[in-house]
């Protein structure tokens, strides 16, 4: 995209395509990014429909492909989808908790040309991993890591970081090193969906965060050239919002299990937008012409303080979902921004995170019963 200021920048291709193949998942992570009402979605796209999406998006220029969920391996056609993706020239990433992976499936995925696997952990010990995901999956994940290595895949480990596990960062990194990880992503929780519901339990204190950063930096120095460590601080502790999905409708297209197409995987929560469905419209039509993908493109939709802000090209006003969740207006400035009139919502959440009391509301696990009762 050119740096020139225009009201409607040219629409580039959807370079990244994220297919959320299913919302089914045997885990029940308290920070899950799936929509709270995921249990309502039952009508998943068929193999043929996913393959049509792949073809249409590839013709538009999509090239980085994420297969995620839920747990994508809950479907038995991940191999067929990866196979077609490879034939079309995608670089295919499987984003999995490891549940459902077997040696046989992995051989088949390798054979059809899957490019890489990102394996997620919840913590470094069996007790905490299994508590946070509410399942007994730790040993299984470790086995998966061995198989992934054995197959010659780059080892990409992801661990979502929050108040309940951030103090274990040293052992989490140590675990990744011992597993032979090439990349380690320490993703601080983003507070949408389930994580937003559980925010009081999950937002770390400033002191926890500072300690964690120190630990991470020491490991980064030690593992230089051997393992790349990514660490993103939670945006609640920043003064400026992140550039959400690189700008609405500029780079990413997400397709939900039922075929709903969105500029980001949490956008479903936004009111007043009807998202197009790949069952009814082509990817070309969706990407270039749908109201939903055009709604927050460019600058025309912006309100003050963003509309006249000289930083608007840096962050596009932040995340639309966070604006809606915290300022109740999807077109507002992301309240993480210190210029937002709603910034105090973030400040007070951060203040509460410095207290040591245990929140009154219970920790809500991501399971179908809770999905029904909280939506």
């Amino acid at each position, binding site marked *: 995209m050119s740096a020139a200021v225009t009201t409607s920048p040219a629409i580039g291709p959807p*370079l990244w395509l994220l297919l959320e193949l299913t919302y089914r998942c045997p885990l029940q992570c308290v920070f899950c990014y799936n929509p709270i009402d995921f249990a309502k979605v039952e009508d998943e796209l068929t193999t043929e429909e996913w393959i049509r999406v792949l073809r249409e998006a590839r013709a538009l220029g999509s*090239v980085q492909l994420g297969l995620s969920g839920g747990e994508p391996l809950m479907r038995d056609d991940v191999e067929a989808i990866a196979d077609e993706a490879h034939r079309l020239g995608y670089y295919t990433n499987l984003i999995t908790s490891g549940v459902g992976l077997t040696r046989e499936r992995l051989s088949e995925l390798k054979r059809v040309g899957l490019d890489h696997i990102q394996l997620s952990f919840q913590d470094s010990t069996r007790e905490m991993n299994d508590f946070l995901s509410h399942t007994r999956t730790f040993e299984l994940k470790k086995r998966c890591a061995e198989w992934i290595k054995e197959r010659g895949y780059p080892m*990409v480990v992801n661990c979502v970081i929050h108040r309940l596990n951030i103090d274990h960062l040293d052992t989490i990194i140590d675990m990744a090193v011992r597993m032979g990880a090439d990349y380690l992503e320490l993703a601080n929780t983003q507070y949408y969906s389930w994580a937003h519901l559980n925010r009081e339990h999950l937002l770390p204190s400033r002191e926890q965060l500072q300690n964690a950063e120190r630990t991470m930096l020491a490991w980064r120095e030690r593992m230089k050239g051997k393992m790349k460590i990514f660490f993103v601080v939670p945006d609640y502790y920043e003064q400026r919002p992140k550039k959400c999905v690189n700008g609405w409708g500029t780079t990413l297209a997400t397709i939900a299990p039922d075929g709903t197409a969105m500029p980001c995987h949490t956008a479903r929560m936004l009111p007043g937008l009807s998202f197009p469905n790949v069952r009814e419209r082509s990817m070309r039509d969706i990407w270039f012409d749908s109201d939903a993908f055009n709604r927050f493109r460019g600058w025309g939709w912006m309100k003050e303080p963003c509309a006249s802000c000289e930083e608007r090209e840096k962050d596009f006003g932040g995340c639309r979902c966070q604006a809606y969740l915290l300022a109740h207006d999807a077109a507002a400035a992301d309240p993480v921004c210190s210029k937002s009139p709603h910034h105090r919502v973030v400040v007070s959440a951060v203040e509460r995170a410095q207290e040591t009391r245990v929140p009154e509301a219970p920790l809500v696990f991501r399971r179908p019963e809770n999905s029904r009762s909280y939506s």
Partner: protein
Amino acid sequence: MSQADRPSIRPGIRLQWEAVQNAYVLLYPEGMVKLNTSAAEILRRCDGMRSVDEIVADLESAFNRNGLQGEIEHFLQLARAQGWLSAAES
């Protein structure tokens, strides 16, 4: 990196022509870079068969220019620092 090294693109990383972007791109786990012409022309020759000297000679003849060695070696160093290359032992 010595001149006898035979650089190759690291397993798991892919160099590919993308018509829509009208460019070569390098694809790796959860990331991608769009390459300019000279970067792409160098990386296309990192096939584990050619030595750095051969790559230089090849490019000099393809582009009908001399004195590219410094530029090419500098780029290969950058590429290695980015983790794009694994050196095949010759």
